[in-house]
Every structure is written in C-alpha cells, then in structure tokens.
C-alpha cells in the first residue's frame, strides 16, 4: 500500500499544482505589454469606448477580482472567450488540440520505433558503416534544428520535386473534411471510411512527420545507445548469457534496463510537440496549438494565452506522471521510495 501511495498523492495534488500554475501565469500574462482593449479599439480609441469595451470583455475591476472570477469559471471548465475572436477558448481547443495530438503521437510513435531499431543495429553491429554514420548523427543530436529540416524539405520535396503535397494543412483544398466524430482528423476519416480524405491526410503528414522523426530520433538513439551499452556491460547480462537464456530474452532484458531514460525523454518530447512545434505548424499550415499561442501573444489575447498555458501544462503534468508510472513498471527499482528516485 505504501508503495502505491506516491502516485495517488501525485494525482490528488495535480489540481493544487494547476491552481498554483494558474495564479502564476495569470500574473505573468497580465504583465505582458500589449493591451488587448487598445488592439481591439485601434483607431477608434476614446476613453469612453475603452471603458465600455473593457467592461464588455470582462477586464474591468482589479487584478485579484479578475483572478477570482477566472478561477471560479475555471472550476466549471470554462476557460472564457478569446478576446480577439470572441469564441469560447474551450471550443477553439476542441478544434485544434486533437489534430495537434494526432500529429505529435504519429511523430513520437515512429521516432520511438525507429530509434529502437536503429540503436539495435548500432550497438550490436558497431563495425557496420551505417552504424558509424548513425553514431555520428546521434552524437550531434539536434545540431540541425527541425525547422531547418522542414524548410529544406519543403524546398526539395514540394517546390523542386513536387513529390510532397502543398503545405496547406491536412487536407487537399478540394476535399471536404470527414464528419467530426472524435475530432482527430485521420481517425475521423478512417472511421467514416473516407479513403480519399484519409489518403490526403496521410500524404500531408508524411513530410512533417518525417522531419520530426529525423530531428527527434537522434536524441532517442543517443540515449538508447548509451543505455544499451551500459546494460550489456552489466554483470546482470553476463549472468543471463552464462545461465543460457535465449538471445531474445537477453536482448529484451537489456532493452528493459536501458528503457527508462528513453521513456522519460519521450515524455518530454511529447510535451514539446504539443505547443512547442510552432515553427513546424506555421510552415506546414497546420492550425495547431503552438500557432494559437503565438497568435495569442501577438494580439495580446491573454484569455486565450492563459487557457493555452493551462491546458498544455495540465497535459504535460499528466504525461510526466504516466512516464513515471511506466518507468516504474518497466524497472521496479525506480519505484519512488528508492531514494534516488523519490519524488
């Protein structure tokens, strides 16, 4: 029982952490320059018009009053209305978040798979020239940022060769989106049996996902290689080999012991992809969460920005928690309570 308590506490504390987060971001975001009321009024500014619009947007009153109002709405899962578009922030997320998540999960799943396989080759066949190349690439992990790869990819595969479809988001222009069921574009297309739309979505995802995989797998390969080499050198492995375990069982055990840092990094990458892949989203025309945050900052829309920060932070914290639980299942020594990993 005691062993399970740490994660129950973590789950229970999640709302409290988020509340602290809300208060902090509220202060930070409100301190940003760029008064949305002024932006909205533009040429039409008069003190009267300013006061009227300020009240209209719910921005009148002292900061603490506004904060209390915000939190009260938040408890009812109301993130307010975007100051710029006048739409419900929750509704805007409902439209953007699934697509962003789908893209992130595609990129992450493929990265994980690729890095796993490549690391196997590198570690077990170190003399292979491919291994040397991969090793060099992994060593410089992140030397070529993904936005550079993306621009280069667009120039080569879209502008020059014409292999990639136009970077206009997920669907060709003439194809109507499939009916919204889950909100996840590809999943919806598949559920609707709409082969044309699904094909179009897949073809639009190939280049951006490829770019992300190329950029991220280097980091994961680096971790896998280091972890696998350590795990192979470990006496545990020698014991297993000596005791006549099958090759598959040995490999599995080695991977299991090398996995936790990779899993942790995968979690971090996920957090980064939901909201951090701004540049990619802009280049490929995906109407994603990162773009939303940038637009919100540029227009001084702090209701939208606050909503964004909260949602992304909440998701990240949940993912961090899941990562810890998965790590614990993979390697019971990592269970908090063991001192080094106590949380």
């Amino acid at each position: 029982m005691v062993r399970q308590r740490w994660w129950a506490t973590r789950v229970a504390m999640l709302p409290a952490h988020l509340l602290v987060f809300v208060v902090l971001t509220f202060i930070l975001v409100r301190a940003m320059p760029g008064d949305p009321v002024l932006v909205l009024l533009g040429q039409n500014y008069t003190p009267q018009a300013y006061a009227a619009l300020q009240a209209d947007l719910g921005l009148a009153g002292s900061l603490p009053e506004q904060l209390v109002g915000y939190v009260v709405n938040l408890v009812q899962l109301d993130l307010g209305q975007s100051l710029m578009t006048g739409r419900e922030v929750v509704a805007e997320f409902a439209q953007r978040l699934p697509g962003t998540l789908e893209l992130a999960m595609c990129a992450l799943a493929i990265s994980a798979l690729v890095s796993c396989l490549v690391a196997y080759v590198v570690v077990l066949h170190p003399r292979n020239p491919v291994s040397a190349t991969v090793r060099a690439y992994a060593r410089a992990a992140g030397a070529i940022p993904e936005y550079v790869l993306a621009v280069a990819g667009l120039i080569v595969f879209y502008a020059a060769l014409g292999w990639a479809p136009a970077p206009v988001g997920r669907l060709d222009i003439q194809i109507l989106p499939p009916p919204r069921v889950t909100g996840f574009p590809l999943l919806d297309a598949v559920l609707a049996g709409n082969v044309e739309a699904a094909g179009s979505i897949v073809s639009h995802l190939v280049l951006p996902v490829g770019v992300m995989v190329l950029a991220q797998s280097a980091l994961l390969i680096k971790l896998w290689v280091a972890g696998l080499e350590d795990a192979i050198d470990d006496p545990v492995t020698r014991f297993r080999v000596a005791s006549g375990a099958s090759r598959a069982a040995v490999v599995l055990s080695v991977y299991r012991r090398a996995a936790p840092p990779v899993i942790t990094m995968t979690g971090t990458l996920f957090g980064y992809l939901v909201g951090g892949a701004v540049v990619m989203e802009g280049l490929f025309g995906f109407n994603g969460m990162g773009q939303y945050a940038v637009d919100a900052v540029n227009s001084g829309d702090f209701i939208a920005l606050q909503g964004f920060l909260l949602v992304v932070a909440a998701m990240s914290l949940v993912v961090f928690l899941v990562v810890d639980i998965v790590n614990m299942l993979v390697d019971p020594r990592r269970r908090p309570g063991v001192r080094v990993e106590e949380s």
Partner: protein
Amino acid sequence: MPLPSRPDRRPPSGPAAYRSGTVVLLGVLPLLLVACAGSDGSGGSAGSPSSTGDVLVEAVAAVPGGLAFDSKPGGYEAFEYTLLTGATLIRNPYVQAEDDPNALTQDLYDFEGVLAESYDVSEDGLTYTFHLREGVLSQAGNPFDADDVLYSYERKWNSTSIAPAISLPAITDPATQLRKIDDHTVSWTVAEAGHGFPLLAVISKISGEIYDKELLEEHATAADPYAVEWSNTNGNFGFGPYVMTDYQDGQQISFEANPEYPLGEPAIKRIIQRVVPDAANRAQLLRAGDVDVAVQLRAADVAAMTGTEGLQTFSVDTNNFAWAFMQTRTPPFDDPLVRQAVFYAIPYEQIIEQVYGGRANPVVGLLNPEAPHHVADGLLEQEYDPQRSLGLLEQAGVPTPVPYTITVSNAVPDMEAIAVQIQSFAGDAGFDVDIEVLPPAAFQEQALTKTFQMRLYRDMSVSYESPPYSLLLAFPEDNEERNSTSWEDPRFYEAVAAGVAAGDALSPEAAVHWNRAELVWQEGRAQIQMAKVQPLMVFREGLKGFAHRTDNVIDFSIVEPGS
C-alpha cells in the same frame, strides 16, 4: 449555367464619369457574360483547383479576427469578409486602371448604386435622398427596406464599431442625420454642403455596410442588443454578393455566390479561402498552381513573380502607404527642424527599389493628387539629401548624431526591411538609429501611450479621396488619444474648416484650403509618407477582374474565371 443576366441594368462599360445626380448601375463588366458562357460544364483537368472553372481558391494568411465589422475592426481578412458578404447603398464604379492594362481601379469621384437604385441632392447641397432598390432579399431571405438602413447606422453608433470615428466629420449623429422617408427612401442630411462628398465617400466604403435588421433582431439579447457578438461569430447578416457556407476556424472558409445579389449573381460561384500562415508558402502555392489567388504576399516575392508565366501581378498606383510617424512631445522629435531633417534622411529610392523591388510609387503630399482641381503648390518631392538633413540639424542646434529608435511590428516584414535601410543611410545624415521589433499588440499600445519615437507601419486611408478624411485621419482635432504623434497646429484645423466651408469639397475654391492644410502638415512633419506599395496580391493567369480598391482587398464579385 446562365446568369440572371439583366442587360437593362448593365449598360456597356466605358469612361462612365457620371458625377452625382442619378446613379448609373454599371454592374459587372460585359466580360462577365462572355466568361459565363464558357464556364458551364467546362473546367479542364480534375485535381488542380485552379482549373475547375467557377470555383476559386484563395490563399489567405488567417481567418478573420471576427466576422462583424462593428465588433473587430481590422485586418485584411476581416475587410475582405465584409466585402464578400456585405453590401452598401452605393459604391465607386470600377474603371480601367491607367498604369496597368490588366487591372481595374475605383473611380473615386463617381458613385453607382448597390442597394440604392439612385440618389439625388437637394438644391442647397445639404440633403441626399436615396431611392432604395425593391425586391432585394438578404442572405437570410428577409426583404431589404429603409428600416435596415436606419438600424445599421443605429448599430454602428451603439457598438464598438470604428465606423463613427472614420465617418467624421461628415457623419456625427446618424440619429438626426439619417431619416426614413418611406419604406424605400432614406435621406442623409449634412451640416454643411462641404460635407456632401465626404459623406458619399464614407458610406460607399465597407464601413457603410447595411445589415439585415430582422435577422439581427432575432438574435439580439439584453447584453447584446444589436447582436454584434452573434453576428461576429455567425456571419451572413447582410445583402452581399456571397454567402458564407462553411467556416473552419483557423483553416478554411467557403463562400457561395448569392443569386439574390442586387447587381447580379457573381461569375465565380464558389470561393474557398484557405489559411496558409506563411507568406512564402502562399506564394509557392500559387507558383505551383495549387491556388488561384494569393494575398498579403511579401513585396520581394511579388516582385520575383512579376513576369512569371502563368501569374499576374498588378502594378497600379495604390493608397497602401508605408508611413513613418514621429512622436512630437519628447526629444528628439519635439523640434520641428529635427523632424524636417528626418524627411531628408530617409533613402526613398533605395526603399522603393530594394524593399519593394521597384513595385512602389513615391508620394507627394497627404492628399490624392488625382483629385479634381488638386493644388500641389509647395509640396515637397521625396528626396534623400544628407547635407540638407545635417544643415537642418545644425539649424536646430542639436548635437549630431541624433539618436532615435524606430519601432516596427513583427507582423510586417517590409517595415523591418525599411528600418534597416533607414538605419544604414541615416548615419550620413546625422542620425544614429536603433531598431526595435515588437509583437503587434505591444506595437499598437506604444502608439497610444506615446512611448515611441518613430514608428513605421503600412496602412491605408480608405476614404483617400475625401480631403477632410485624409487630413484628419492621423491628426484628429481635440482627440489627443487618437493622435499618436501629438502634433497639432491651429492653422491646420483652420485650413480644414475653411475647405469644408468652401462648399463642394472637390471645387477649386476648396482645393486652395486643402493645399494650405497640406503645407502646414508638411512644415510640422510629424508624418512622412515613404512609398505607396503596389498590390501585394497575385492572380493566376486567366482570372480577370482584379480591381485595386482603397480598402486594398479583392472584390470577387467582379472577378471572372476566364479560360
């Protein structure tokens, strides 16, 4: 598919210079009929959107910030949305542009009816009576009448609309100026005859859109008595040439031609606005034939596309100004001599050639030089002259180099490029320039709090042709908040008032006063007009009917698919 062709209402095009009096409905150019004959069934190969005849795909930078002009004022997309789905009482007729055979432009000194059939002016020039078209239906199917007109202005003046601010000085209070004569007649009354032309100039632009009263009243609530918020998210509350059929936030908006549009159903039956945030990608999509029209391109890309096979760029004179504003309350620009020195410290030719690839025109004075009876006496031509700048600085008695900071918005890359040019060439002219780049919201806030020294931006003067409008746009009288430079000069306002008092704003008598005002403005030099930027939209070849408008958006109701 035959158009509801109404030849009786569509006289042949030509130099239709009908000044005031009866409005002649020019409608769409006869080319439309030709295009339409060829459009049925045809379409070329499938797959490429550009070849599907009467469907047009436009690459835009974003969806509009809101769909109601009265709620959220600005932005290219919002203006274009208003033009697509809204209609005004009158508009400026389109005529062939002088400088580009493939482009049309507005005849800013003539008007034709849209929702009004005609109008007449009283003997004293104070009352304009509009005879409204009968049998017009809104997008929601409600009939159009005088109540819609009155309701529209009531809403504009009782919401956060920018319409009241930009309708000055002609319209100050619609409740007393706008009257319903009968169900199909309304009249506008102005205080002085000199306000007559400015009145027509302003109600013929997008801020004069007329709304569907019945529809909006259905959706009014106590908190939102004019359904501004409702219309801002739902759209389709007017009488315009297109109906919005699909809105996918942040991705795509679709429109279909409105068969009820009083000037006839447009030739382009369906418009898809696809959001492509990256300007370079928008240009590339057009090059690759994936879209028919790309807008808000970078000047460098448009210049590079000029002369490319399969594409049309347009080189008409515009009112899309690259402006520099100086804040005159604090040093160094509190001294008019220093501001005048800056005028000679800006490398205009360099800006036009390098930043705009030659696709911009020099500017002289603040008013439209094409206006009838325009007087240009004493207006200075743009000139980079470091010696004169240094001389003026010496005269001002300030130590050189004079340091100042240029602020630009990160949303407008050509302004960043201009700032770099100014910085490079200011050194020889006695200035030491810093550049600050801000997000748009912070940039706008600086204007209001007057915490900038010089700010650059590109904007237009939508009622450019109206002298009092253009003169007072940046320097409103007794409105310190809206006057970002804080420059005021009693002689300036006296000259504007004298111009209005001279009767017809376009008369030679008034022109003398407008010139006086311009000279005071020039001496005060709180604003420098650096260039007029040529259209930043590009069409695929074959599309016809591009018109430069003073709101700098595309009127798709006159565009034809072509071959």
